[in-house]
């Protein structure tokens, strides 16, 4: 296992960082946050066209570049640093991964090229009102119609970017278990999508009601849970990388401020109360980084069990680390950090929403305990 980044990977980070510095600067983040759609199709197109970010880890046979998860993790880390809005997480970490893992080669050929080219915005519709990420949390049903197709009836909610997705991958209950079904949203009958205003305005969600909505079954009926579980593990690791990036940006802001803000005639960073806090923040970030990178390496090289363990570990740790660092950043800033105008709260809210995005840290600890056989 190679635990350092290659020169190419360093270069990738640099390129992505400078792209996002331009296209996901604070003004853009705030503009998209204030916009109920929260999506800039022009930037989305350039992310795909100039950098190939949507297709980075999509295998070449499906129109992607075939890079590994470590590479993709670098992109997510930078996206987290820049608080990138829009459907990147939903499309790449959730939907593309679900397509890769499902047992349906034809679906991969049909859908992944669109994802990789940036043409398709996609998401995974898994959670429901009860707000669970396990098999038991799936209640929405799919049933056969007279013509041998499938129809969805029920509600999915808290669906990341569900209001914009062209392609919904829906986890549903079918006669013999959990299945994955695809709905292309353009002109789809029986589909009602309501954007949900979010506390973290940089990440949008939607509630989706299906009423006898025609859907395409992906893979054999009733066998999708293992693929979904794996998708959630991958997404958990990528989210962890994103959280590390967010936390690192919050620490940068805190340190920069601690150097210039003076009280009692000295920079506040010269007080141990602040200096030690910043040092602790860094310790948390580096530990979180190990948790997240460990997950990325497992995704590239590990087996099923290792991945499941590394993913739960990463989410259990990185969620809390990001929240703590983001709160500390507000604290270091004092009054100014408590304002709407200062970006510190954007990171804090992103940290809180990330904690709830794929299940809470407690839930991931429980997953980890189970997977370790504790």
């Amino acid at each position, binding site marked *: 296992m190679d635990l350092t980044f290659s020169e190419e990977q360093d270069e990738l980070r640099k390129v992505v960082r400078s792209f996002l510095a331009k296209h996901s600067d604070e003004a853009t983040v705030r503009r998209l946050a204030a916009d109920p759609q929260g999506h800039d199709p022009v930037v989305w197109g350039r992310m795909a066209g100039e950098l190939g970010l949507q297709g980075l880890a999509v295998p070449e046979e499906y129109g992607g570049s075939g890079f590994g998860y470590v590479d993709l993790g670098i992109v997510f880390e930078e996206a987290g640093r820049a608080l990138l809005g829009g459907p990147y997480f939903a499309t790449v970490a959730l939907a593309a991964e679900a397509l890769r893992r499902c047992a349906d080669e034809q679906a991969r050929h049909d859908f992944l090229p669109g994802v990789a080219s940036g043409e398709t915005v996609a998401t995974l519709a898994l959670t429901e009102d009860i707000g669970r990420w396990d098999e038991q949390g799936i209640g929405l049903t799919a049933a056969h119609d007279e013509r041998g197709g499938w129809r969805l009836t029920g509600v999915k909610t808290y669906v990341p970017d569900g209001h914009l997705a062209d392609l919904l991958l829906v986890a549903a209950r079918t006669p013999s278990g959990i299945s994955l079904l695809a709905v292309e949203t353009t002109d789809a009958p029986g589909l009602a999508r309501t954007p949900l205003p979010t506390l973290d305005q940089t990440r949008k969600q939607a509630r989706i009601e299906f009423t006898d909505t025609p859907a395409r079954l992906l893979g054999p009926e009733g066998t999708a849970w293992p693929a979904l579980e794996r998708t959630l593990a991958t997404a958990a690791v990528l989210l962890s990388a994103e959280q590390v990036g967010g936390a690192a940006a919050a620490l940068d802001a805190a340190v920069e401020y601690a150097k210039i803000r003076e009280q009692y005639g000295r920079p506040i960073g010269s007080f141990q109360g602040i200096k030690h806090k910043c040092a602790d923040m860094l310790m948390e970030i580096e530990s979180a980084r190990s948790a997240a990178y460990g997950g990325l390496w497992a995704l590239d090289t590990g087996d099923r069990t290792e991945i499941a363990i590394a993913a739960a570990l990463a989410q259990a740790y990185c969620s809390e680390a990001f929240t703590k660092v983001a709160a500390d950043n507000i604290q270091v800033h004092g009054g100014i950090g408590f304002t709407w105008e200062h970006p*510190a709260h954007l990171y804090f809210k992103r940290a809180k929403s990330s904690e709830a995005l794929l299940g809470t840290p407690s839930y991931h600890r*429980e997953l980890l305990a189970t997977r370790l056989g504790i």
Partner: protein
Amino acid sequence: MELDFGPDVRDFRDEVRDWLADHLVGEFAEHRGMGGPTDGAAWEVRLAWDRELSAGGWLGVGWPREYGGRGLGLLEEIVFEYEYARVNAPYRATVNALDLLGPMLLKMGSEAQKKRFLPPILGVEELWGQGFSEPGAGSDLASVRTRAERDDGGTSRSSGAESGGEWVVSGQKVWTSFGVHADWLYVLTRTDPRSVRHKGLSLLLVPTDQPGVEIRPIRNLAGQDEFAEVFLSDARTSADMVVGEVGQGWRTAMATLGIERGTTLLPQQLTFEREAEALIDLARERGALDDPMLRRRIVDAWISVRIMRTTNLRTIAELTAGRTPGAQATTAKLYASTRHQQLGQLATELAGPAGQIVGEDYALDRRQRSFLLSLAETIYGGSSEIQRNIIGEQVLGLPKEPRP
């Protein structure tokens, strides 16, 4: 939250209870639990509720009768707060004047100032804002730069300028809670231009309704225009509007901060008990009580609010007995603010994905608002770092950090 303060105050307690039962109805009852020391939610209703309390004679329970108070003791005040918290009545909008300025005037104000200002506070006729912090003077309050100079030829706009002349005030204040509602500000100014730090400061009462005062709201991270920045440019106030002695403003200000760091915690912390109860209900609803880890954290949250209560009761008991409160009075704020944030973290976690959804126009529910606003509790009224310095240096007697 049954708490018996003894036979002497039982009649009083019943009186409070009956009054609250009769008056906390309709719109007021619908706004139970609304607001906080830096929470501007439901401002108009809360102001109306303050007027209702005022009409019932429940503002200034412990203030002398001659200024419109009830003239009762600390114990009655506490009983009132407990009964008030028990029914989760809206958080009083006039808190700044009731809890900070009023007690400060009672302690350090002139007779004329007390007569002039205390009755309209209790009548909810004049609202106050605190003008201490400046862009360059936060934790280091002694570095305030706002200047006040005497102009003895001027004519006063404020009444009662027997001593003649006026103060002319210029500078900038910031983070003034509910500043946009304030009719008056109590402002820490430098009255001796050659002075440095704690010396040469004076505390002035300045009316906001004049050309020299501009108040602009600042939006907080919960999306509320709660606090404000205040621009003073040749703002005027009459010469007798100085509280305490000229040049002794630091002492006066510290007396207020002493109040802010001491007894005013009580009403706020009692609301945390409500939040802990709500947390348990939420956990039950979400089926989280079976999870041993969450169970433990929920119990810890409950322990922390019970400890806050007992800590407060200790301080109160010492104050009623005429003794100087012990070390717990200095650790109380640090404890409460950090534990309250933890309680909010836990509540947010228990709320799950539903807790991440807001209403139209970023309308937050009570849990979301309280959690976000709790982030300020470790900043205002002396940040946690400053609290630790005070505890270390003033209580434990550790050597001071090196100062320039």
